[in-house]
């Protein structure tokens, strides 16, 4: 007989928060031009009565599915589906609202998602992720729940359903530059993480093998973290500029105070701490029994490192790399400070023009990239963790 459960706290909380977001927070903003502050609209004004009813109905359904008394696994699946519906519904209804709220006589008017809409999306997606983790959910259902919302958004983007929203209007104006800057963001992050991996793992191993070096190495890596991004590239300007003009090879490669050199240098320095620290921690956490066994089998120290310590430390080291990768992806917006582009261009450009949706274009794109990267690395981390060791720090369920 299928288990029945008590009330599901996460589901109920999500339902209450979702209902609050729709009814109490400003749902959308209508501006007469992209630089105006505009007026906030409630969900009723923005979506009309039927749209509001639809959203309320979905959240109420989530509440019902969380009350308990239903079989556990189908309830979780239902909550996941409802979360997806809430997310896609909020976005689609907002896009449809654009036609209701504007007309051809005001071609520069913009409709943006407001706090309430963004909150709905965030709560809905959290609900989907929470439902996905339910024990005993079949793998197919898990996969569908993970992918349904992103796919839905992707389809809406591809078919142009969302083109009326202010954030997409900004995208339309910047589309050539947009993808070039996404590529720049990925390029800088990719190179910096690779370099930091090589350097950081080496430093971590060094700190592990020479205990006296541990504190200095950590201290140095730590210090870099405390320097704010703008200050870091400012400090790097003079030395890199000197290198670029005085060493012909560097000059030809484009080393200088502006461009890729300060960005990659700064990003690598920032990524070091996570990798060094996790390499050390991973190596230090290897059980002495395993090392003894290896030595007993006649392995040299180096063989022990390569065949016993490293593989066992891998989940933790990989966790450090995952942290560094996502952090570096976000930090790459530094490029905008040194004429190297990246999504920071839209964030800071929007800030200086006081155009909120341009800022969102950059930020939302960045968040989506970071989520995607984290997802991919999580999946890879599953491969790296030996099955019988899952549950150790860093290894996913």
């Amino acid at each position, binding site marked *: 007989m299928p288990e029945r459960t008590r009330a599901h706290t996460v589901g109920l909380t999500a339902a209450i928060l979702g209902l609050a977001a729709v009814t109490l927070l400003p749902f959308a903003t209508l501006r*007469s*031009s*992209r*630089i*105006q*502050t505009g007026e906030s609209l409630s969900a009723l004004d923005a979506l009309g009565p039927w749209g509001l009813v639809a959203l309320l109905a979905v959240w109420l359904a989530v509440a019902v599915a969380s009350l308990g008394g239903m079989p556990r696994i189908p309830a979780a699946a239902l909550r996941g589906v409802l979360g997806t519906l809430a997310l896609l519904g909020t976005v689609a209804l907002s896009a449809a609202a654009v036609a209701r709220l504007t007309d051809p006589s005001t071609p*520069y008017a913009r409709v943006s998602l407001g706090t309430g809409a963004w909150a709905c999306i965030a709560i809905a997606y959290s609900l989907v992720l929470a439902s996905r983790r339910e024990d005993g959910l079949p793998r197919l259902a898990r996969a569908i729940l993970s992918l349904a919302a992103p796919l839905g958004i992707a389809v809406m983007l591809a078919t142009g359903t969302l083109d009326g929203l202010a954030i997409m*209007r*900004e995208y339309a*104006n*910047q589309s*050539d*530059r947009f993808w*070039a800057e996404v*590529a*720049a963001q*990925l*390029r800088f*992050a*990719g*190179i910096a*993480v*690779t370099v930091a*991996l090589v350097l950081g793992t080496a430093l971590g191993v060094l700190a592990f093998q020479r205990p006296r070096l541990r504190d200095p190495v950590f201290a140095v890596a730590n210090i870099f973290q405390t320097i704010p991004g703008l200050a870091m590239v400012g400090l790097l*300007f003079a030395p890199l*500029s000197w290198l*670029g*003009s005085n060493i012909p090879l560097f000059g030809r490669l484009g080393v*200088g*105070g*502006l*461009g890729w050199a300060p960005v990659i240098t700064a990003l690598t320095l920032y990524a070091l701490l996570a990798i060094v620290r996790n390499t050390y921690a991973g190596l230090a956490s290897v059980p002495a029994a395993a090392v003894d066994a290896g030595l007993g089998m006649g392995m040299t120290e180096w063989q022990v490192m390569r*065949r016993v310590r*490293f*593989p066992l430390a*891998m989940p933790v080291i*990989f966790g450090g*790399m995952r942290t560094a990768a996502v952090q570096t992806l976000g930090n790459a917006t530094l490029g*905008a*400070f*040194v*004429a190297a582009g990246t999504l920071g*261009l839209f964030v*800071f*450009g929007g800030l*200086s*023009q*006081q*155009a909120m949706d*341009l800022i969102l274009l950059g930020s939302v794109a960045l968040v989506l990239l970071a989520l995607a990267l984290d997802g*991919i*690395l999580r999946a*890879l*981390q599953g*491969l*790296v963790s*030996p099955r019988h060791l899952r549950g150790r720090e860093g290894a996913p369920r």
Partner: protein
Amino acid sequence: MISNVRRAMVACVAIALITALTACSDAAEDPGADRPSKGTIIIGSKIDTEGELVSSIVKLALEDAGYTVEDKSQTGTTEVVRKAIIAGEIDLYPEYSGNGYWFFLDELTDDEKAGYNVGETGYETTARLDLEANDIAWLEPARANNTWAIAVTEQFAADEGLVTMSDFAAYVNAGKPVKLAASDEFFTSAGNPEFEQVYGYTLTEEQKVRLAGGNTAATEKAVADGTDGVNFGMAYGTDGALADLGLVILEDDLGAQIVYWPTPIVRKAVLDAHPEIADILKPVMESLGLEELQQLNARIQVNGEAADDVARDFLESGRFIE
């Protein structure tokens, strides 16, 4: 187990390298690759709408003439951009003729200083001094005065009878409520000090709202919305957002301000190697007047069009490029 680890590590490094390399191939795309290039010019700009616009105009004009242009626009603040051009990191960027007053303040005679209230004399002094001191050549300017100004909402101007800066001085001296939002530069080094001296008023610290950075979008928005009680906001003469936000500029009736003409400036070494740059840009800059600049700025700021598109429209309609 070990082979799994190896596979995963190889996969990660591969992903990182592939990401980096495919994104790197962007650099290999060269729009002018079919024609042999006359040379590469690196263009920078300050981080504001007009800087972006003028650098786009220069970029497209030079590309049309056969040059390869490396776009490093939105480089940084005035200090950063000056450092960059003197260090050779960039070859060209749009500067304002009036800024020469600040760059060379210690060397100017009193006559030369007074000359900055007139566009032509100020431009000539700056051009001469920058060439001597930094080997930077000033090309043809756009004769549109993008100077410091104070803006108010149309409603407020009508209510208080404010049309000129003399009216503003009278308003301040009458002890009426003032909250002026402006950049730090405006309050400390340029803009407000001149106004205070010529019009005879002084602002207390509580009347000043200091913002970081010189982009007037924030100050104009503050005065348009009345945020934090702000009723006066810093603006520049050629700003595009004024009409849309319902703001008017208080006229500088006594001519207190220095004249700032947007001018492309270039490293002398680059100009000597490619003297035709001056001839390409001369007619373009000559046709950029005050209203033209305001409208182009408005298209970027209010309509949200990309600077390159607006620049291309301007150049094509003036028959400067094909």
